[in-house]
């Protein structure tokens, strides 16, 4: 409670500013399908945002546009003073600071759990230290630091005994928790979750949500696309209801869930709650 003031102050710092974000996919030769129609949104540092909405509403596309996994076809995404939607911007540099967790986990199948976590930090830090020409001692130090960090993260989720296992031997819940700490190993400023529990067996949903909840309590900025309404209500500071490629309703969870303004929000909530 002592840092309540600090928390409030933090929430006013704009981390990602989205203006007029549009995305369309070509279908056939002449037609295009507009998935996102000029979306405006602001994500503040330390804020937890849940994105909900019916399927096909563009919520996953919206999330994937934030780190340009899908290239936006219009608008701007200002992050750290640069526009990510601009093709000239080095997107890799920014993706290091934007963690992403996928529905299908996407652990690297040819790498052990430990290698999965260490790969990107080691590669990127070595590259900054001079790549192939980095001094051996420096490389060794980077490797050791990455390993220590990875083991520390594995201990945190209680999977240190799986460090040398391959992903194919793990359960879905274990894979997703490792995918989350793999993103954490990059020390991101914001985490994007794309339906992190949708591909899990019901009994494994809890362990993954617990980990995300922990991160939320530690003050991590996050955007979560989810169908877990209870979780969204509990964790989120703000819930975005998307429909037809726009943010139809944007409100704190208690307001949106108990007193939705729009008829379509009411209709959607009546179906899922």
């Amino acid at each position, binding site marked *: 409670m002592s840092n309540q003031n600090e928390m409030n102050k933090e929430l006013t710092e704009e981390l990602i500013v989205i203006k007029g974000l549009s995305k369309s996919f070509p279908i056939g030769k002449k037609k295009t399908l507009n998935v996102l129609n000029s979306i405006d949104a602001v994500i503040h540092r330390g804020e937890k945002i849940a994105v909900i909405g019916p399927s096909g509403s563009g919520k996953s596309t919206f999330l994937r546009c934030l780190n340009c*996994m899908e*290239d936006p076809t219009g608008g701007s995404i200002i992050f750290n003073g640069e526009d990510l939607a601009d093709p000239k911007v080095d997107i890799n540099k920014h993706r290091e600071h934007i963690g992403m967790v996928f529905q299908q986990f996407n652990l690297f199948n*040819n790498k052990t759990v430990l290698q999965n976590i260490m*790969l990107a930090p080691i590669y990127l830090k070595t590259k900054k230290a001079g790549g192939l020409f980095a001094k051996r001692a420096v490389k060794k130090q980077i490797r050791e630091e990455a390993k220590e960090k990875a083991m520390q993260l594995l201990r945190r989720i209680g999977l240190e005994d799986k460090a040398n296992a*391959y992903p194919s031997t793990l359960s879905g819940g274990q894979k997703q928790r490792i995918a989350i700490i793999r*993103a954490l190993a*990059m020390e991101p400023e914001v985490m994007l979750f794309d339906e992190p529990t949708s591909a899990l067996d019901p009994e494994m949903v809890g362990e993954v949500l617990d980990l995300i909840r922990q991160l939320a309590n530690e003050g991590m900025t996050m955007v979560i696309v989810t169908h877990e309404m209870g979780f969204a209500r509990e964790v989120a500071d703000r819930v975005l209801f998307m429909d037809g490629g726009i943010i139809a309703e944007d409100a704190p969870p208690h307001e949106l869930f108990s007193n939705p303004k729009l008829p379509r929000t009411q209709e959607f909530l009546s179906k899922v709650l």
Partner: protein
Amino acid sequence: MNFLDEWSAFWRLFYTNGGYKRVFSEGLKNTLTIAILGLVIGILIGTLIAAIKVMPKYKTLPKILNGVCNVYVGFFRGTPIVVQLLLAYYVLFPLMGVSIGSLRTCILIFGLNSAAYVSEIMRAGIQSVDSGQMEAGRALGLGFTPTMMKIVVPQAIKNILPTLGNEFIALIKDTSVVSFVAAVDLYKVFTEIGNANYEYLAPYLMMALIYIVLIMMVTLLFKLLEKRLHRDDRA
């Protein structure tokens, strides 16, 4: 002469007079050198071409590179390897004023030829890897090339290993045409042994045997390799 006489005449040339030394030190050595180095060059260039072909194509450079690769693959798959060898050895290199010797010409041409085939094999392999693997790498801030090299290609190679084994076997057998450009391989050595007393049955039988044994060993090698690469799969 019946077969036994033929065989004993061949055996005298092959074993007693030390012809086998040349078979191994020149014939087999060159055949293997051309096939192995050819495959290595093929995999390197082939992977590069495959990577260019699966690149996202909304920028100009990948489009141009893609066009170049298409021409390359079109040429090397569209002409017989003998024609490529002859063109390189008797036309292109003399015109350019370079002389790298027949063995090196063969290694180069077999490598370039194999690259065209491997590129298509590799492209299929890359496309067989779940696109989420590439996405996960990119989302962590890795570029297209490092993600390709560290994540996607190793998994692709695992998937295409049997086909790659096929390519290697074809390459070994194709080396029997290198005598067109005066390189010495298994076929050339055994022909010369046959030329010594104009009896070809026994030498060619022996040659066939060596090819078969060689290819059985390659098959075994690829089986072992496959087993090793599949260690990260669930049993």
